[in-house]
């Protein structure tokens, strides 16, 4: 099973699908933008400001999803001692970090017309800020540590500690009184958002997921080339 993660097998696949993912991302993004900005209806309470949801919510979902995946793989780094797991986590982190920043900035912009303030230290917003800090620490640990083995361990520990923050983000709106509204899209319960808004939200989420996949493939390719360059230098 672990052989499927062999860098030499994946490099071949990456080069094949990179262009396809890019083309698909552009198509889905254009479709999502038309749906989100033109075709979807305005909200009866929030009017057109609700359209910010179509960039804010997918960014938050994907940054959370990527960090959860990084944390799980970080356990794998310790359990299976598989170096490729840390290569995957390192390649996933930049897009996760950018998505967490987008979620914070667009949330702040949305907060001004909705709550009358750009920022509030409430549980959901603060825990999202913590997620961005964990991403930053994870990326910085790779940048400042010259020893790869040490960088793997430090970054994995950061990701595992950061995993505690994920349920806090998810349930913060239920555990505490927050300015942030509760979740409208639920997996186990009935979704309280109308299909005319759910469709653009789903399309934009797909576009953002494709973008993070594209960035991951490019970054992973770069990391593999770095390893090969080191190999050639050692000859």
């Amino acid at each position, binding site marked *: 099973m672990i052989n499927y993660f062999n860098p030499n097998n994946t490099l071949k696949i990456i080069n094949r699908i990179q262009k396809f993912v890019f083309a698909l991302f552009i198509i889905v993004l254009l479709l999502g933008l038309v749906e989100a900005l033109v075709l979807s209806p305005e909200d009866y309470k929030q*009017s057109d400001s609700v359209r910010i949801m179509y960039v804010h919510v997918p960014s938050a979902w994907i940054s959370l999803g990527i960090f959860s995946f990084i944390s799980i793989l970080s356990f794998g780094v310790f359990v299976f001692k598989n170096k490729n797991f840390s290569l995957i986590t390192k390649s996933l982190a930049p897009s996760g970090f950018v998505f967490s*920043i987008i979620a914070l900035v667009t949330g702040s912009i*949305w907060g001004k017309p909705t709550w009358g303030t750009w920022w509030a230290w409430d549980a959901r917003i603060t825990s999202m800020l913590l997620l961005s800090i964990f991403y930053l620490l994870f990326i910085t640990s790779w940048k400042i540590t010259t020893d790869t083995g040490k960088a793997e361990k430090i970054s994995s520990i950061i990701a595992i500690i950061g995993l505690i923050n994920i349920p806090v983000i998810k349930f913060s709106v239920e555990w505490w009184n927050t300015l942030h509204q509760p979740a409208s899209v639920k997996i186990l319960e009935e979704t309280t958002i109308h299909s005319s808004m759910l469709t653009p939200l789903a399309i934009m989420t797909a576009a953002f997921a494709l973008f993070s996949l594209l960035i991951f493939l490019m*970054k992973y390719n770069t990391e593999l080339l770095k390893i090969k*360059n080191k190999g050639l230098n050692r000859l």
Partner: protein
Amino acid sequence: MISELLNMNGYGVYVWSSFIFTLFSFSFLYAVVKLNLIKEKKKFEENYKSLDEKKLASVAKQKNVQRDISKHFHI
């Protein structure tokens, strides 16, 4: 129609700035990652070209490296 789309009932500045920030972040991240990829590819090509015959023979013995070179680079 266009002014309505831009104005968005007075929320245009919030909506458009959110979308523009998102697309700018995407473009910035894509450009940074792409430039790094191009830089590493160039470095690999230069490193490979600078190898002497003995080292080239050593590389040729490593099947995976040889396969990747022939597949991804025009040397």
